[in-house]
């Protein structure tokens, strides 16, 4: 059984197929059709909803793609849909701003934009252009060209957020506290089962008992198996309520990030340590996806492209794998074996990711190349991390995504640099060595020739950035 608030109304679900997405639940089960399906793959944002979660005595509001969210993950939370925004028949201030600024044309993407803007207003402190673009990057509009929508965001952020949600804050808090789970919950239906354990021990035990279960973290990839590949997942274990997996601990020499920490939250801790990693995360999918997707999921998914692994490989990250009561720590580079194959054993899962603290001279840089700036999958993602002493390369970690069947270190390239003076001759030798490291493929994102050319060019760019940090040579830094 799971319990959650739909807007202000308590809902209890007992017999529901855990493969049902929040989008289908709203539209088909409840007849609430304000939330639209544009793609059912988390790429257009038309189905954006807001989920409120209890954090101490506040409620944290985040946008999600309802097409990628299974209903079971709503347990103990508040789901806010576009139908919940009007107050006594009056449009909410974000809705009114969209009307005033002519922000809707065909109107189909509009409820999604309204929800993204609602969360932006709730979480923000006034209007900020960069924050607005970040909040709206995962919402596609084919009609307006976005200018009036940005204007509406500005109007509503400046107007402030005093609304019925603020007025009902205490009541909502009380309701949410009342429905917080205190033990593993199950949601079963249509012969499918899902579990939402609260502790890592329970999770480990459940996974041993159900080795065929699929672990559901953010679900931003797993849900695609249901919505796009039309599979049924008979057993799911949702890890998003496991407290230990949601913590970040900073030590003198390392940062330990729980596998179920949403990417949005990784952003805060990593941006302080490695500004470039933050830039990468900023362009990682969309805010809706980053609110939902986790660092552990991004690694465990073992995509050849997935944007965090190349960066983590260049940083020399380790991961902790757990199975039952035992755990082991391995280097991330030993985790990936082949295309979507890892060393992970049956019933084993990623518990945390260990990232070394930045040295005083932080030479870590990462570059993502894609057709579209935001919310696109990399053609190539290159991460570089050299240690230099007196102009000589003393340590080299270089890794790429999109260049091989797995995210992979460029060993030949690194060897060509190690112990050599950090000059143009060494650079060009190292660029040539990339051809020994990688034989990329051609696909709709890029040709193999382009991939190889930019891999080398990124190394050249890296050298320029280290030698002349004052000169901005990224288009992303320019606007």
């Amino acid at each position, binding site marked *: 059984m799971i319990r959650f608030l739909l807007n202000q109304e308590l809902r209890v679900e007992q017999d529901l197929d855990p493969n049902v997405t929040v989008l289908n639940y709203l539209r088909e089960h409840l007849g609430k*059709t304000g939330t639209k399906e544009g793609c059912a*793959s988390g790429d257009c944002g038309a189905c954006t909803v807001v989920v409120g979660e209890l954090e101490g005595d506040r409620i944290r509001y985040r946008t999600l793609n309802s097409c990628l969210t299974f209903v079971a993950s709503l347990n103990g939370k508040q789901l806010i849909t576009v139908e919940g925004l009007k107050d006594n028949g009056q449009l909410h201030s974000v809705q009114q701003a969209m*009307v005033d600024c002519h922000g809707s044309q065909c109107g189909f993407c*509009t409820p999604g934009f309204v929800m993204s803007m609602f969360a932006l207003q709730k979480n923000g402190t006034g209007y900020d252009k960069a924050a607005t673009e970040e909040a709206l990057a995962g919402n596609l509009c084919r009609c*307006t060209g976005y*200018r009036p929508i940005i204007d509406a965001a500005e109007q509503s952020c400046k107007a402030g957020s005093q609304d019925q949600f603020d007025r009902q804050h205490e009541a909502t808090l009380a309701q949410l506290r009342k429905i917080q789970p205190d033990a593993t919950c199950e949601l079963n239906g249509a012969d499918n089962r899902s579990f939402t354990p609260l502790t890592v021990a329970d999770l480990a035990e459940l996974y041993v008992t159900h080795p065929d279960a699929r672990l559901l973290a953010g679900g931003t990839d797993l849900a695609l198996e249901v919505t796009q590949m*039309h599979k049924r997942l008979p057993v799911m274990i949702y890890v998003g309520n496991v407290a230990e997996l949601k913590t970040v601990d900073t030590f003198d020499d390392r940062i330990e990030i729980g596998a179920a920490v949403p990417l949005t939250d990784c952003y805060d801790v990593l941006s302080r340590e490695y500004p470039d990693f933050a830039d990468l995360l900023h362009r990682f999918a969309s805010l809706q996806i980053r609110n939902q997707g986790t660092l552990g999921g991004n690694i465990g998914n073992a995509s050849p492209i997935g944007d965090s692994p190349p960066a983590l490989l260049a940083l020399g990250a380790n991961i902790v794998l757990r199975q039952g009561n035992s755990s082991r720590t391995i280097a991330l580079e030993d985790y990936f074996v082949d295309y979507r194959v890892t060393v992970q054993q049956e019933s084993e899962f990623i518990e945390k990711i260990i990232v070394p603290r930045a040295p005083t001279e932080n030479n870590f840089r990462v570059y993502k190349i894609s*057709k579209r700036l935001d919310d696109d999958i990399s053609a190539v993602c290159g991460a570089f991390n050299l240690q230099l002493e007196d102009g000589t390369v003393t340590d080299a970690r270089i890794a790429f995504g999109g260049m091989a069947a797995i995210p992979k270190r460029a060993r030949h390239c690194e060897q060509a640099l190690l112990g050599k003076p950090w000059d143009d001759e060494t650079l060009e030798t190292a660029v040539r060595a990339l051809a020994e490291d990688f034989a990329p493929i051609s696909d709709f994102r890029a040709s193999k020739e*382009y991939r190889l050319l930019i891999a080398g060019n990124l190394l050249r760019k890296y050298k320029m950035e280290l030698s002349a940090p004052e000169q901005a040579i990224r*288009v992303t830094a320019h606007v």
Partner: protein
Amino acid sequence: MSNHNKTTRTQEEMMALVRQDLKTGVGRKIPHESAGKHVSGEAVYIDDRLEFPNQLHVYARLSDRPHARILKIDTAPCYEIPGVRIAITSKDVPGQLDIGAVVPGDPLLADGKVEYVGQPVIAVAANSLETARKAAMAAVIEYEDLEPVLCVEEALKKKHFVLDSHQHKRGDSAKALASAPHRLQGSLHIGGQEHFYLETQISSVIPTEDDGMIVYTSSQNPTEIQKLVAEVIDVPMHKVMVDMRRMGGGFGGKETQAAGPACMAAVIARLTGQPTKMRLPRVDDMTITGKRHPFYVEYDVGFDDDGRLHGIDLTLAGNCGYSPDLSGSIVDRAMFHADNAYYLGDATVTGYRCKTNTASNTAYRGFGGPQGMVAIESIMDHIARTLGRDPLDVRKHNYYGTEDRNVTHYYQTVEDNQIAELTAELEASSEYQRRRREIAEFNRQSPILKKGIAMTPVKFGISFTATFLNQAGALVHIYTDGSIHLNHGGTEMGQGLNTKVAQVVAEEFQVDIDRIQVTATNTDKVPNTSPTAASSGADLNGKAAQNAAITIRNRLVAFAARHFDVTEEDVEFRNNHVRVREQVLPFEELIQLAYFNQVSLSSTGFYRTPKIFYDHEKARGRPFYYFAYGAACSEVLVDTLTGEYRMLRTDILHDVGASLNPAIDIGQVEGAFVQGMGWLTMEELVWNQQGRLATNGPASYKIPAVADMPADFRVQLVENRKNKEDTIFNSKAVGEPPFMLGIATWCALQDAVASVGDYRFAPLLDAPATPERVLWGVEKIKQAMARDAVVETVD
């Protein structure tokens, strides 16, 4: 406004109101009529309609072969899935199988052969979409593969066409080319474009008595849906009623290709007697439906030292996909716009309709015009680089004149030519020359990042080139409480058509717009409508509605003159009131009086566009009632190590005549520009070797997102410039023309790339200019420089 909250005003108060202007009439920035419902999620799209208990959902099993004979179809396994109601093949269609828009060629379900990956072969209906899908996949289909043609150049070479070719010819281009001081040849590939309307194709139908059908559809062309549904279920058109309230975007993609789901659902509803819905999942929508035509272009141009064209020989080969659809008119329009704003000199322009084994390409905002314009703009850039001139200079030298050099290659005189004037204004307001110098300086200082700038014009012909389509109807009722029902043959796809037409009627009756309810487009109310396409929605339907309103108003005026014993000149409609000499009465009071005195308060209205004709035989005529003009100036920043880029700034000046609604028109201009920019930059369609579309969803096909719009975006409408033709309140059509303003970004990217070679070499990028193509452009320029350096050393 209704009787219930009517306030009683004194004569003085009403006289004061009569002296004020109406606040919601023509020319005002009225919000979209559905804006309040869009933002609250209350606007109802087809998939949001309440379902019936016995509703069926349809899923089509698609061909996975580009070209094959169908040897066997076994649907028996479909019926083993619980919940399945029926599985049909082409043999089960009760009436006509072909749903081709203009000429046959589009079987509703594949008949004996398949001609592209994605062609519907069988359709299965079940109690849920998921069940229907599962069952459809269970069917056994066997094929014998045939040789496909997947590439437009190959089709052109093999003369593999869906329709005959057409040619515009003026003078002797061969002679002009031979005698011109300079001559250039080149070729160019222009990519297609997925519509990516946010709402996918969908129709929902209900069988009625008398073997009829009610069809709720998301379509730009209700009448064609009515005709095709009637044909596939084999009933006369009067048995079918089509209702179309709103689309979640159309952009041309729902002009002909909404018919498939509508007809499929209708056939199944006919066979089962059950209400039936067909909604395409996104990937299926992108796989089944056609897109903007990719084009292959070859050119041979002769010009003088100023870059002015003496002659041109231009081949435009449109990739039509497997069937004609609207490709005849689309390639025609590419030819009609191969001049854009330029006098071509002696010209031979030939259009080919190439057949390939891909989805049947279809209408898309601009309808071939953009491809024709990209071709000529590419030529302008090529000439400029060859001569070492600023491309803007070359463009200006080629502009149509106002007195001479003002006749197109299809012999229409370019009237009310604003292009030079508009360019001069934008050149000044965007500070083009200063920025051109600053960019040159920036590029000298910046080794990796390079800036580019370009200013390109747009001249776009307004009217359907199929002349008979330039007609429209409307229906206006005034009810006894003074509220007005308005219906017209156009369809609302987000462009604000209903709002504009309501403003027109509000203006004619001098009542506030909230007194007017625009109802769903409905074939029972206004028959025999043209598609809402060719930017014509407001021009045609606005006039038709105006005519209906004027008919009723004239009756009211005549009645009032009789009733109050005054002359008709003494009766004036003003700001929700009617003034009869010194007496003022509220609008609704006059309506009630008229009703009690047995005056008809309902009328149809009709409109046809005057002046236009085209003789296809002679390839001459006046296909366009008028031209809309615009210009854009874009500045970009390119990373020459990766090919990535950003849009720094765009300035636009666009002509909409006397705007019916400046807020809506600006929305059209901005949205069209960004869509045009997307087409020419990041939106890349990729098919694999087997003819399967690899970019079949938003994860792989990228349309512009919020950060892609120009960081500095300045859009102005040309002010105080009424359309010289008698259009609706002297406005101009706005749907398509600004799409082509996006070409400025594509030319600016080439300008940035050309800077790498000191502007001496033309990058000649194919479209779209993805980061990869931009980087190859940079590499090409670097190689040309290296060759040049070698030559110089040898010299």
